[in-house]
């Protein structure tokens, strides 16, 4: 597909942007819809990653939504309950709220756009959630950008930030990672990178990984490894590919960051190009190739 990613965020009369709040079970969820003018037959819902990774990659999502809309597909960015611009505090949201949010937004987006070809896309933990939600939603397309496969390890590693904060403010580690996990188990709320984590959320999210999971969904899946040596695929991703039906595994170099913000790359060209080409080649945009 020929899309000018360097100028993807400039005003484009080919589509319109609508911001608002969607109500799910009385909870106001922020959403931004990118809607091609005229008829659209395809729609992709974008699932955000976790905590600060979401903040650091928000512009990548917006850019992708604009790229999709410029190619004729509707795209929806949204914030989970208790996250981003949505209602609630971070600690108010249970793990299952994340999945309920995805399902509600997806169903509404499909209904509103009347799309015949639909999909979910996520980055990191957003990809993990998208894969879990897809089992029930059965979207035609699932795009997983560097998903967190081992969520137990991911959330345990996340607690490292708490240790670093202890070093900064107290000069030493007062509570080890194991003690922090015990604190969570005992019902304490833990603040990590400014986000309040409850034990309920932490343990449920940790346990809902993609390792050794069986997937029944029938649609197409694009699994992207981001970073590392592109010729060498991480075993966890090959394992995930094997567990999914009709799953294509590709690799791209890491063009943007989710762990820091030194690089300004709101529209990573290789990642976008491979993603859009995959969708196009498999008929997502409804074009006859």
């Amino acid at each position, binding site marked *: 597909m020929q899309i000018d990613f360097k100028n993807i*965020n*400039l*005003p484009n009369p080919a589509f319109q942007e609508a911001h608002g709040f969607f109500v799910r079970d009385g909870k106001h969820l922020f959403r931004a819809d990118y809607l091609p003018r005229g008829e659209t037959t395809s729609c992709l819902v974008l699932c955000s990653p976790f905590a600060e990774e979401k903040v650091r990659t928000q*512009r990548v999502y917006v850019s992708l939504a604009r790229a999709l809309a410029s190619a004729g597909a509707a795209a929806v960015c949204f914030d989970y309950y208790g996250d*981003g611009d949505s209602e609630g505090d971070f600690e108010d949201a249970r793990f299952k709220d994340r999945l309920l949010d995805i399902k509600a937004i997806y169903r509404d987006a499909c209904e509103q756009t009347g799309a015949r070809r639909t999909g979910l896309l996520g980055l990191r933990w957003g990809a993990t959630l998208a894969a879990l939600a897809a089992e029930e939603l059965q979207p035609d397309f699932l795009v997983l950008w560097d998903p967190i496969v081992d969520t137990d390890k991911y959330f345990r590693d996340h607690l490292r930030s708490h240790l670093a904060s202890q070093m900064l403010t107290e000069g030493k580690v007062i509570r080890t990672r194991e003690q922090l996990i015990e604190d969570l188990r005992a019902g304490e709320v833990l603040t990590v990178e400014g986000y309040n984590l409850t034990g309920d959320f932490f343990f449920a999210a940790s346990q809902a990984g993609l390792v050794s999971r069986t997937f029944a969904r029938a649609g197409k899946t694009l699994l992207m490894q981001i970073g590392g040596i592109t010729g060498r695929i991480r075993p966890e991703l090959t394992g995930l590919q094997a567990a999914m039906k009709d799953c294509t595994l590709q690799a791209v170099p890491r063009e943007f960051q989710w762990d820091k913000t030194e690089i*300004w790359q*709101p529209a990573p060209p290789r990642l976008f190009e491979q993603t859009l080409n995959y969708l196009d080649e498999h008929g997502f945009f409804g074009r006859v190739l």
Partner: protein
Amino acid sequence: MAFSEECFDLTNRLGETMYGIVHRPETPNGGMVVLFNIGLHYRTSHSRMFVRLARHLRGAGFTVARMDLSRVGYAQGEIRTERAIDMYDAVQTGLFREDAERGLARLRERYQPKRLVLVGLCGGALTATITAASDGKADGVVFIAGPVTVTSAEAELSTMHIFEADQMLSMYSRRVLNPGAWLRFFSGKSDYHDLLGALKTKFVDLRSRLRPRSRDDTPVAEREENKGDILNRVFLAALDRLLNAGRQVLFVMPELDRATYDFDRLYLRTFNRRYADRQDQHRIVRIPKANHTFSSIASSRMLFETIEQWLNERVRA
């Protein structure tokens, strides 16, 4: 409390759409607060600090707006750079001023506040100050952890900041009697690169302190290569205009932050001399054990309460 947040949008001179959220209070007190983003980040700020701050102030009766100015967050427009750090100087000297002015004009027209205060964190503190000065109608500014110096991207990337060097050396010194730490050090597990960088920074700092000081704060040509030590003149000029126009300014500085370190080391002397006769117009509040993004709950709560108290005392309608 009922959910009362609504989206708004406007376009800038280039036709780029900018998006924001307004938090409307149940019982408005006539005051409006506009929050400006940290650097190139979007309107929620780190750990949703701006969302939480907006909801806190909304609870106190203020109408609060958060918005993405063009080229960041949800807004349209492109920044032509590959490294975020290359934009810091531009942000800190008014990159977003014109868009911010447009935003203020729209918000004034729509909500007709009796009092208006601009709040910003880091680069957003500079946007708030510079915009308030040029706009001329804002009643005050809350300057949170803003850098008061101009930046050299190359120096930033190649040299450890003295604040960070102090932090690192302090951490090592606390472990000097810890055998495990020495074992890690001699078994190659310590970060020698960072340790050497910290020692180098301390040495250079010590040497510069032993040199005779310039009596004038004006940047001189021979100091240009070390931009990190030069005060931001655009900011100084904006602050002059604000204080001369009788506006109120609150500085909130986190204890564990290099911005505060530079504020104290490079700026406080100038500030105290320039504005000694305007004590009733400015206040400096330090938040203990707070980092740059106030990521502990205690520090962000103290930040929110400090701002609310100041707004009620100094600028409430």
